[in-house]
């Protein structure tokens, strides 16, 4: 290839000149300084560019360089040809003295084809195209800039909208479009409806112990929408939105809390581990999956969940420590909902926040307003880019509030006050996104009611369908313990069947 630094430097200088206000000359010294290119070298490049009439100099005070043509009339090919002084992208070898001329002439025609294709491509891209291009990783509002501005060591928290749905951090707005926002809003409403229905079914004795998601919908909904097909989800147990968006069904949720292992496997979804009951024990699995993705050179990120209480567990430490050392593509998400059953965060750690723990594992950490859908979506999409670009893992502390009980067997009135609950009610994630959408004239509050009615009917229809599921079979107890059931285990089943027969006969 004949591309040298000359082409690259010429492009950088021309992008700067072309991006300046119309007809305002740009000083060579300023370009040299901004681009960290030596002024002498730039001068050498500017001579051919001037000769080729790509730029011209403007003399006098306020002078400098301006484009000599419109930016859409200058192609990369023009620039390359001007500064490299060749029309050949590949330097052809002299094959005339070689033995088998036939073979070499074939190779030469391959080079020629590549050359002409490259030339066509280069002629198709203008300087104006390049100037208009979206920066691949935007430095002004990307992960790096978020991390710089919201260092958890300073206890900063990242948000985009306030409690009234007003944009307070415009510069980071824009990771999703209006349709996606509406979709997310509707889905959060759906999840909340399903959650409330599950509580109802539990009280009716149609489901067993159930941990509600109430108030935390923005975190797992944004995760669900940010995840790509190849990504892995490693759940804790309060991320129902993400499970469904990953490909699980509402029926899986009923099966799970209805007391059937079938609900653990999310049969229609790929790359999702089962809900994990032993606190934080799932995090090393995420690290292991991340290792496997790297080892097998596969695409994808891992999204792993834990609660605030889980950060006190040894496995939290071990998982993040291994992840840092192995540089795995894992986004660790702490849903800090303020309580581990009844124990507040202040009883879990003396650290000023949870994101700060990332420092010890050599990975970045960030506190995010977990009730701000826009902030969560922005951060998680940036985090996904970050980890899949070989930067290693990241720790996100999503600050939220569990509006409901820990599970249906818990009584929050024993450990928190009405005053606290009403303060947090103002920060409800669905309310906040609704106010934002209403302000943007994308939604009307009165639409909610009809939508919720529809969801209720839908959830109930599926619950009735779920209740028709086949009964738990004796084989289900034994069949999945091992690849081949050991003889002894088979015998235990056979003995039980004999008992069943006896019971049948003696009835």
């Amino acid at each position, binding site marked *: 290839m004949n591309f040298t630094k000359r082409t690259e430097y010429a492009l950088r200088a021309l992008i700067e000149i072309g991006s300046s206000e119309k007809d305002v000359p740009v000083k060579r010294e300023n370009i040299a300084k901004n681009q960290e290119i030596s002024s002498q070298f730039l001068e050498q490049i500017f001579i051919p560019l001037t000769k080729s009439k790509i730029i011209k100099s403007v003399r006098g005070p306020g002078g400098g360089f301006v484009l000599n043509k419109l930016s859409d009339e200058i192609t990369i090919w023009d620039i390359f040809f001007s500064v490299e002084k060749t029309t050949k992208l590949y330097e052809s070898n002299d094959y005339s003295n070689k033995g088998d001329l036939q073979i070499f002439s074939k190779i030469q025609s391959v080079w020629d084809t590549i050359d002409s294709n490259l030339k066509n491509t280069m002629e198709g891209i203008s300087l104006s195209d390049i100037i208009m291009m979206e920066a691949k990783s935007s430095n002004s509002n990307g992960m790096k800039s978020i991390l710089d501005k919201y260092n958890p060591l300073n206890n900063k928290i990242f948000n985009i909208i306030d409690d009234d749905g007003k944009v307070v951090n415009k510069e980071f707005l824009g990771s999703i479009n209006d349709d996606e926002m509406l979709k997310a809003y509707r889905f959060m409403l759906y999840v909340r409806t399903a959650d409330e229905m599950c509580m109802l079914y539990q009280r009716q004795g149609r489901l067993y112990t159930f941990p509600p998601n109430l108030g935390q919908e923005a975190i797992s909904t944004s995760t669900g929408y940010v995840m790509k097909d190849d990504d*892995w989800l490693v759940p804790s147990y309060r991320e129902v939105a993400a499970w469904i968006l990953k490909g699980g069904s509402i029926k899986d949720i009923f099966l799970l809390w209805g007391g059937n292992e079938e609900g653990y*496997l999310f049969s229609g979804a790929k790359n999702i581990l089962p809900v994990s009951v032993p606190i934080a024990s799932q995090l*090393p699995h995420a690290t*292991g999956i991340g*290792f496997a993705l790297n080892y097998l050179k596969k695409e994808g990120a891992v999204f792993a969940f834990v609660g605030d209480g889980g950060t006190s567990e040894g496995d939290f430490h071990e*998982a993040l420590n291994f992840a840092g*050392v192995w540089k795995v593509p894992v986004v660790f998400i702490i849903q800090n909902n303020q309580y581990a059953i009844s124990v507040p965060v202040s009883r879990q750690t003396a650290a000023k926040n949870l994101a700060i723990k990332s420092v010890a594992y050599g990975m970045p950490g960030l506190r995010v307003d977990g009730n701000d859908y826009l902030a969560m979506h922005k951060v998680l999409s940036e985090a996904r880019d970050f980890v899949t670009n070989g930067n290693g893992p990241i720790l996100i502390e999503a600050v939220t509030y569990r509006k409901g009980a820990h599970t249906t067997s818990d009584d929050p009135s024993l450990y928190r006050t009405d005053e606290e609950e009403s303060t947090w009610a103002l920060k409800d994630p669905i309310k906040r996104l609704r106010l934002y959408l209403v302000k943007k004239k994308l939604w009307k509050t009165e639409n909610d009611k009809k939508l919720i009615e529809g969801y209720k009917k839908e959830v109930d229809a599926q619950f009735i369908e779920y209740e028709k599921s086949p009964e738990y079979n004796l084989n289900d107890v034994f069949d999945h313990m*091992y*690849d081949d059931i050991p003889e002894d285990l088979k015998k235990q089943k056979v003995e039980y069947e004999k008992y069943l027969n006896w019971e049948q006969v003696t009835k």
Partner: protein
Amino acid sequence: MKVMNIVQAVNDALDLKLTDDKNIVIYGEDVGVEGGVFRVTSGLQEKHGIERVFDSPLAESGIVGTAVGMCAAGLRPVIEMQFSGFVYPAMNQIITHVARMRNRTRGKYKMPMVIRMPYGGNIKALELHSESMEAMFGHIPGLKVVIPSTPYDAKGLLIASIEDDDPVIYMEPKKIYRAIKQEVPKEKYNIEIGKARILEEGTDLTLVTYGAMVREVQRALVMAKKNNINVELIDLRTIYPIDKETIMNSIKKTGKLLIVNEGPTSYGVGAELIAIANEEAFLHLEAPPSRLGGFDTIPPLPKGEHFYFHSPNRIFYEIQKLINY
């Protein structure tokens, strides 16, 4: 054929399987550069690369927990616990995930991992380096537990363990790591998990043992032979799933059962074997099925360990007792 000790046989099995299957990775504390504190993984990193054989951070739960994730994503990790006495921080991962993942996902995620660990005592070691806790693993549904006693078995059983789609706890008798040398085939071969082996045929008494105790029992049998006692010796080789059939058939033949092992007696492997004798061969019994396990105490530090670990003489004493019942 090549003459190998157990360390070399395990190393050879790992080497062959690493060559065989690119999805196998080996990691643990000091297993990479150093080749393990017993040098079991010696030379493997050099040969197969640091991506496949490597030192992990020093954290047993992290080692086992990450292996769970690797299995879910398609790898077959063979991990090492430096000593069985250090496995306890990983017990949560072993019990709550390794042993259960297949069942709770109805077979969607299998856990084809091997957790290797040296076990057993009478080696004048530090505290927690002498335990024999195989019964604890045998009590966890979802695991397989394997203990070889010879280089030949060590290789064949490890290959079978690695190829097994279920998690296997592979316990290596460290006292005899280098004590026995044997001709071992150079190529790959499997020994079926769950099958005991009759080492010596006999008619007077069935003696079941495994691991490092096999050698001590064989010494005791020299004394027994001199006293015209004809013992059938069975090497159990797998703690779970246990080979009921071989044991049952032997008891039917001899009418007497003695189990010799190192672990604490109560709720031990001996108790399980006595239950088998009662359930499967009750009418053939001529004496109470008996066990010689370790005391239900902490294994003493080196100055006192001669009280705890069975000498051939002690084993012979128990054989005689049972013969004269």
